[in-house]
């Protein structure tokens, strides 16, 4: 199927792709979405919108995507299997595809116990790998999970996440190859602070030839403060923030910490550009979207193709 996705076009042309994340508001404030979208316009190839990240209620990813899309940007809708069963997920896929969204990121989702509705029931009727297969079957075989057929299939470029830093390391490669086998087109990784470990992961991926089967975008998050770095290091499972990063931030005057955080992000992207099999970067500037243009420009990724 011909997929008319800008992200796919950039990745296929072997240009280093740039995506960024927009955090949806915990209200109906569409102005803030438009504002964030306009900050990113021209600097990225596509934007993600998180889907109830950390299990906190915010505007639905698909709705935020459509609002920002009106500003002329290409959305990547994030969908987790935490809150919807296979019926609801497939219904939403039909809806987003009909409304012109071309990219989807299939996720398992953060556990409910981390969020602001800890009494809610987790769904997890399917996992992210099964989800990838379902979207692919819908797209390529015009087939629902039930086996029933549809007339017009959703035109979607299928993405998923990968965490090179969680344990066991070997299992992470296995998970990725499972995702590839089930039909994932692109991968956005967890935030990379430990570039050496990421390089080790990429080496394993190249050894298996997986870098030729999927387009990997390395995740980058600019660190705003030492507190934020320590929080990510100690409180967020699956995050790997080496002590060297915290030391480096501690060495600069307090008012320069965020500037240093941006510098680290830029350097990380520059290193990612040199790694064989890395096709782009995904910038997750959490509640700091205004810094994305500067990062993109300084990393030598502006203008966008």
């Amino acid at each position: 199927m011909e997929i008319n996705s800008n992200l796919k076009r950039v990745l296929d042309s072997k240009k280093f792709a740039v995506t960024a994340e927009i955090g949806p508001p915990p209200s109906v404030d569409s102005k803030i979405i438009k504002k964030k979208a306009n900050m990113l316009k021209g600097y990225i190839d596509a934007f993600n919108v998180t889907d109830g990240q950390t299990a906190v209620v915010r505007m639905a990813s698909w709705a935020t995507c459509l609002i920002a899309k009106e500003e002329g940007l290409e959305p990547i809708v994030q969908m987790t299997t935490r809150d919807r069963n296979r019926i609801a997920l497939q219904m939403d896929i039909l809806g987003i595809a009909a409304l012109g969204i071309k990219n989807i990121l299939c996720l398992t989702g953060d556990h409910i116990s981390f969020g602001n509705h800890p009494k809610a029931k987790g769904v997890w009727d399917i996992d992210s790998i099964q989800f990838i297969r379902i979207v692919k079957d819908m797209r390529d075989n015009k087939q629902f999970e039930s086996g029933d057929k549809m007339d017009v299939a959703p035109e979607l470029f299928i993405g998923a996440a990968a965490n090179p830093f969680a344990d066991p390391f070997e299992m992470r490669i296995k998970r990725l190859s499972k995702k590839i086998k089930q039909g994932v087109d692109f991968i956005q990784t967890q935030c990379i602070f430990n570039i050496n470990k990421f390089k080790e992961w990429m080496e394993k991926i190249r050894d298996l030839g997986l870098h030729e089967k999927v387009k990997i975008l390395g995740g980058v998050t600019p660190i705003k403060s030492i507190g934020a770095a320590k929080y990510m290091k100690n409180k967020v499972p699956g995050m790997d923030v080496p002590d060297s990063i915290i030391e480096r931030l501690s060495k600069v005057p307090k008012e320069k910490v965020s500037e240093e955080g941006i510098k680290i992000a830029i350097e990380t992207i520059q290193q990612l550009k040199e790694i064989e099999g890395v096709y782009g970067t995904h910038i997750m500037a959490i509640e700091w979207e205004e810094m994305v243009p500067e990062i993109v420009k300084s990393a030598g990724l502006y203008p966008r193709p």
Partner: protein
Amino acid sequence: MMGQAQKPMPEILESLEGKEKVVIMGCGGCSTVFHTGGVEEVDIMEEILVKEGKDVKKITLPFAVFACYKPFSSMFIEKHKKDFKNCDAVLMMSCGDGLQTVRQILDEDMDIVKPFYPAINAMGVSGGGPSKFMEKCQACGECVMGRTAGICPLTECAKGLLNGPCGGTRTDGKCEVDPEKDCAWYLIYERLKKIGQYENIDNFNEPHDWSKSVTPRIFEREPLDIHKHLARTKKVIESLGI
């Protein structure tokens, strides 16, 4: 067994507000093992309720006599028919299975319709003991453990994932949701290696068939010959010198 814990006493007392004559009934099965409805716990509950001014009648079931098995519990209910008839409420010190089995015997076989209140919260199919227990089975009706090294990911993984761990496994192999708990997939991964089935980790597990757990599931079985089975148990007890 059905893992269980007693409800907070204020909640139990609130449910019995305005009910003067109360029948409390325990269970000789899981509730005895979990100290929620054994003979001793029923005695303590009686004491508390009497102090609260209630007129209490108690029914205790000896060890291994399940409230949820009708042929067992009906024998005890029959003996206390009058107490049930006269009471304002029944407080069940068993899981929801025991409560409903007893309620049904009264409703359908004896035409005694009374309000029932649970003293217990059931917490899932759990194994272990004598002191530490862990939920181990979802009773999903479609066991996957032949593919997952004898460890149930639907139960032991907080997200019930079937194709490997989420991105939150801690460096020590613990779960992101609770650092006290093991990541189920970390355990599966290690155990597959030990049993020489490491390659299973690459297998894709299809979406689970939840149609097998549409509730309530109803079964028809040949009735058990209780006397024959109790005689066997008696032999075991005798061989233990009890």
